[in-house]
């Protein structure tokens, strides 16, 4: 009974809205309960892939049927959504104390979860479109309830972009509906297959446009920074964790289930890969580079992490686009790992924002002494993001590298290497500016976040390390998916994955790492005990340091590196979109000035002119 996954959250949403009016914590607890319930019931129906459901409706003379079905891919995404929303809900029970729009937030949050479930289980374009629109609208309201003015503009730009893409989707889908008579995926796939190649490619591109926008790939990534940066701190993890991924779900559906790859098989190929999918991979590479360069420049922590999400998305699209078994499982692995460690980072930063109230990095510092657990969560997460061995981030990147090197795509590999190495830089920046360095006087008495906010962080740390050592858990669901989509699977065991050039045994590495650590600890213990000294007692060439503010190096952390890219960052893509819309609407303004200038005699004159023109036209024809 798949519709229950949509209607339970929807019903709970309205209940949460009403209850939250009275007591601030009620809304978030309801969200937590609902997502826990979803997670549980999803776990129970694992494996029953034939579960589907359809009901048809004759609407204004159109025979429409709405199909819902459970596939391994949608099961995985549904589990991820409900897991992440459970953690966020538990986190936001306390963190919404000071949040003005908390009841609207919970209402929309549950509606977003419900609509995502709808999108995932939809097997026909109309249901997909309806729930996709709902998801866009509810996330629009969620984003605009963030920081004052900027959140409004960010959400506004996000909605216009996704609405334009959704309309192209609608046009293409209705065109197919007229040809095949039904909205379901299968007949559309056959029709597209035996249709003329360029036309079906065009159609599929139009259908995949909203997925490109939602996934934040290069030309359409403009909304991601502002949306994540200004969304309320509880929603950013969900936004960058899950909403970006739903875009990828769509892309996978378009590439594999609508047989996009089979269609472009025979087009001209570049090194064994159809040119179009190589182009997508190239787009992914460009996304990595732009995302990384712009991430390094950011001063606002959430914007920095938003850009890092964009660049990580580049990895996933590269993995999907090169369509090799290794590539696909690498990108799915990275998709899951990215969700895990990205939401940990955002939760950690949300905890920092909850306590300090600011998102600017140079306004905080030295929080490790006041918030050690948040620091630990953040540290594990960035180790995973940077792709350092004992964590899950490295495995997915390693698999993607194996896939790239196996086929010898140099430029894609170059971008991937650049992305992962540069991620050390923008990952270390918040660590050193927010957590290390000098502790500001006004943050002296900050306490650690309340218990309910600690639990999700702890769970996520555990999951990062767990998947880091035993990737096999993730692999068996991925192999099910690739089996279902017709890609042969990569052989793996509980703690090792067989790459193109060698297996990867993460348990072994973990033991060696621990051994090295023990030796170093021995060396440290043998020497004399060291004397603890305060933070302000540091070498400052003899000068007495009194105020921590001036002694904390945080503003423009990588100024020398940024100088290399000053001109590139200046002409950002958003400027291009802004001017495009601005002069389009200016034409409206000039249009009005010519015609509606307020003189009634002109209006009368226009009616006579219309008569004369039409008469002339009629007379000529």
């Amino acid at each position, binding site marked *: 009974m798949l519709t229950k996954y949509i209607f339970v959250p929807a019903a709970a949403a309205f209940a949460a809205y009403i209850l939250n009016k009275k007591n601030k914590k009620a809304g978030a607890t309801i969200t937590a309960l609902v997502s826990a319930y979803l997670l549980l019931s999803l776990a129970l129906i694992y494996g029953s892939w034939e579960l589907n459901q359809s009901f048809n409706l004759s609407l204004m003379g159109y025979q429409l049927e709405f199909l819902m079905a459970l596939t391994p891919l949608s099961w995985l995404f549904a589990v991820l959504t409900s897991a992440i929303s459970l953690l966020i809900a538990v986190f936001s029970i306390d963190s919404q104390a000071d949040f003005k729009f908390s009841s609207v937030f919970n209402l929309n949050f549950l509606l977003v979860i419900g609509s995502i479930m709808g999108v995932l289980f939809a097997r026909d374009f109309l249901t997909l479109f309806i729930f996709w629109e709902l998801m866009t609208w509810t996330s629009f309201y969620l984003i605009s309830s963030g920081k004052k003015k900027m959140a409004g503009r960010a959400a506004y730009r996000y909605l216009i972009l996704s609405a334009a893409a959704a309309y192209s989707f609608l046009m293409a889908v209705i065109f197919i509906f007229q040809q095949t008579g039904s909205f379901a995926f299968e007949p559309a796939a056959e029709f597209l297959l035996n249709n003329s190649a360029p036309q079906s490619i065009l159609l599929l591109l139009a259908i995949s446009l909203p997925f490109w926008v939602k996934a934040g790939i290069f030309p359409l990534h403009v909304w991601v920074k502002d949306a994540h940066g200004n969304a309320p701190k509880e929603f950013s993890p969900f936004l960058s964790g899950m909403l970006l991924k739903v875009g990828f779900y769509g892309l996978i559906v378009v590439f594999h289930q609508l047989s996009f790859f089979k269609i472009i098989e025979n087009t001209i190929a570049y090194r064994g890969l159809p040119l179009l999918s190589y182009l997508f991979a190239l787009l992914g590479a460009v996304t990595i580079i732009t995302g990384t360069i712009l991430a390094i420049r950011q001063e606002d922590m959430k914007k920095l992490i938003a850009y890092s999400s964009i660049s990580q998305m580049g990895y996933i699209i590269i993995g999907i686009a090169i369509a090799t078994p290794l590539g696909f499982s690498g990108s799915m692995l990275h998709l899951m790992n990215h969700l895990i460690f990205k939401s940990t980072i955002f939760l950690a930063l949300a905890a920092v924002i909850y306590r300090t109230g600011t998102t600017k990095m140079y306004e905080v510092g030295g929080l490790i002494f006041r918030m050690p657990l948040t620091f630990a969560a953040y540290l594990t997460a960035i180790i995973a993001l940077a792709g350092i061995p004992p964590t899950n981030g490295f495995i997915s990147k390693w698999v993607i590298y194996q896939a790239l090197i196996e086929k010898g795509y140099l430029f894609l590999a170059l971008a991937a290497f650049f992305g992962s190495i540069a991620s050390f830089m923008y990952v270390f920046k918040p660590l050193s500016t927010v957590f290390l360095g000098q502790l500001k006087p006004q943050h002296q008495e900050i306490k650690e976040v309340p218990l309910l906010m600690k639990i999700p962080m702890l769970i996520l740390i555990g999951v990062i390390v767990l998947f880091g050592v035993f990737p096999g858990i993730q692999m068996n669901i991925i192999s099910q998916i690739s089996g279902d989509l017709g890609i042969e699977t990569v052989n793996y065991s509980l703690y090792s994955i067989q790459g193109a050039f060698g297996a990867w045994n993460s348990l072994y590495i973990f033991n060696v790492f621990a051994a090295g650590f023990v030796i170093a600890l021995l060396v440290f213990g043998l020497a004399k005990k060291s004397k603890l000294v305060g933070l302000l007692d540091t070498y400052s060439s003899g000068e007495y340091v009194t105020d921590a503010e001036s002694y904390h190096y945080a503003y423009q952390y990588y100024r020398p590196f940024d100088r290399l890219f000053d001109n590139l960052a200046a002409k950002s893509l958003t400027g291009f979109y802004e001017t495009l819309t601005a002069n389009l609407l200016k034409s409206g303004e000039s249009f009005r000035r010519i015609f509606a200038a*307020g003189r009634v005699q002109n209006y009368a004159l226009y009616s006579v002119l219309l008569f004369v023109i039409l008469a002339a036209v009629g007379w000529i024809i």
Partner: protein
Amino acid sequence: MLNFLEEWSFFGGSILLIFIGLYGVLSRKNMIKILISLGLMDTGVNLLLVALGYVEAANAPIINSVNPSNAAAFVDPIPQALVLTSIVIGTAVLALGLALVMKIYDKYSTLNISEIRGLKW
């Protein structure tokens, strides 16, 4: 020859009247002149309507002692009925227009229509 002139003098006259009225509405600056030319257009159209109903050498469609109902030659009564209602409507519109002009005059203290630009947008 005569009836041709007769025939066309009605149509030509009324259409000419309409054009004069139209020109008045489009070009005059003074609001009252605009209203007058609007009235002119109305009368022009009414004349045209009546002219349409003209029948050769027939008398007015009024049944009284002089020409009882069974007389053959009546001018077509329907356009005249139309003209009646349209005259009523024309006068109503003009009266309303004049009242509006008075109100506008109170506000802008001018009758020149190009100066009344309150609603530029």
